[in-house]
């Protein structure tokens, strides 16, 4: 939070920096102290301004919060989905079905050779007999061997790949398929790819939403600033006439924009966290039904700070734009 605050306040200070020369021979340290005191005072006064018209301020903060909550929620859910896909990809296995005429000794030797392959993290060799037992265990159906002349199931080597990347997995599968002992390979990545494509589309959607709703926030804050500037028009005119610089005029509005953005961001974060808490139980139930370890995770600390930084900057930028427009119009008169 500290780094975030410093970053935001630095931006405000930069955007409202004045070329004012310190008077009365005050030292640079004293000048800096005075400058910081001025900023502290302006920041405090601008917070007080929020309470002059509490309903209007709350409405602005509410609009900012709601506008940012939607893309933020999407980003958090996509992050959870991304982690799920990564975990599934990490468990990606390639099944090598050996030819029926490959002896058990050759199969075991092949699995020993493959264990030292770069792309293989671990493997498990299932003889024809073990394959049959596993089939019977998993399916609950006993194979009537007395009716069959021989075990119809091939020996299998189940390879756990050392990579999670779909492209690398496919290359490893193709390489292993060329082995003379291998009849058939199986790598079921299509559904992972589909899910990944959906998540990627979701990320584009989230980015587009962030852009559109950031513009909404800009317009909301600019409109609020416009009303505040109108309310303080005479004060601005008098301050300009007594030598107030544009930076000096801008400063209280930048702090107001900062508070709107920051409180709006906090509201968005709170709304998203509440939503996640609300859907956590139902999602866990669905996940359990699919024997999945998927769960909706809480917002990461980095995303939390990024959201606050983003919303605060939006508020500051909107205030800067509106006040600059007003001052430009005032100068043009």
């Amino acid at each position: 939070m500290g780094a975030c605050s410093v970053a935001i306040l630095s931006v405000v200070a930069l955007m409202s920096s004045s070329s004012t020369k310190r008077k009365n021979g005050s030292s640079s340290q004293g000048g800096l102290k005075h400058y910081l005191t001025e900023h502290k005072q302006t920041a405090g006064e601008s917070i007080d301004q929020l309470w002059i018209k509490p309903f209007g301020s709350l409405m602005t903060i509410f609009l900012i919060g709601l506008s940012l909550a939607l893309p933020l929620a999407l980003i958090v859910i996509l992050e959870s989905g991304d982690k799920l896909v990564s975990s599934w990809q990490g468990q990606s296995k390639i099944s090598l079905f050996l030819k029926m005429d490959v002896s058990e000794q050759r199969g075991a030797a092949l699995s020993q050779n493959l264990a030292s392959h770069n792309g293989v993290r671990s493997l498990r060799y299932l003889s024809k007999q073990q394959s049959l037992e596993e089939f019977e265990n998993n399916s609950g159906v006993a194979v009537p061997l007395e009716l069959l002349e021989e075990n119809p199931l091939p020996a299998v080597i189940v390879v756990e790949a050392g990579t999670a990347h779909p492209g690398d997995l496919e290359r490893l599968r193709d390489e292993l398929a060329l082995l003379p002992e291998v009849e058939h390979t199986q790598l079921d990545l299509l559904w992972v790819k589909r899910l990944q494509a959906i998540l990627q589309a979701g990320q584009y959607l989230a980015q587009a939403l962030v852009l559109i709703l950031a513009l909404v926030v800009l317009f909301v804050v600019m409109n609020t600033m416009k009303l505040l500037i109108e309310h303080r028009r005479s004060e601005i005119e008098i301050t300009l006439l007594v030598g107030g610089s544009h930076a000096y005029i801008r400063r209280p509005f930048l702090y107001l924009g900062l508070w709107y953005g920051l409180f709006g961001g906090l509201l968005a974060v709170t709304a998203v966290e509440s939503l996640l808490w609300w859907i956590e139980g139902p999602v866990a139930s669905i996940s359990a039904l699919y024997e999945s370890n998927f769960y909706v995770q809480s917002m990461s600390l980095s995303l939390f700070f990024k959201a606050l930084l983003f919303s605060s900057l939006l508020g500051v930028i909107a205030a800067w734009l509106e006040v600059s427009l007003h001052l430009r119009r005032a100068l043009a008169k």
Partner: protein
Amino acid sequence: MIQFDNVTKSYAGGQTALQNVSFGLARGELAFLIGHSGAGKSTLLRMIMPSEHPSSGKVIVSGHDLKELPNRKLPQYRRSLGVVFQDHQLLSDRSVFDNVALPLRVSGFNHRDMGRRVRAALDKVGLLGKERLMPDTLSAGERQRVGVARAVVNRPSVLLADEPTGNLDPELSGEIMDLFEQFSQMGACVLIASHDLALVARYKHRLLSLDHGRLLSSDFVSGSSDV
């Protein structure tokens, strides 16, 4: 200090506020600007602030050609001016202290110096002790004096006043005018637009007489305290 060279100001509707006005005021000079309502007094003052620019001609103040003054240098220039407005132009949601301190605050004064100067300025206009009051609680005359205190608190080199005694009783008007005279004696160039010819006549001054935007005279007048 203040130089007007053939200054004409016309508005889009064809109305001319000033026509070929030329005069010069030196450092330490006290000048009164007289003329009927609509003669162009306020326009002339606004050109020095400058919240308006001439349609033709030049306004030069403290060596600055105001039309050529870049926007970024405007605040610094305005800090060298003190302006008393006819309608006070006080901030109603700020205390007397904060109103008077505004020019110092925008100039970057520290709080200690600000406090000292504000109290000195309020003392000069007879309002010491009323720092914490809000302008709405003051009489019209007191508000005008707050405006005067704000104009002089920055010790400006040029002091402009638009009907500064309009709301004051004769005694207080005299005190405020004496204050302006003191400022001119300290080296400031003081230009006052006024209707009160009797009050004006008490001081040694330059008299700039405007009529329908034309400067009729810019004579030196010896003051008489008997008037």
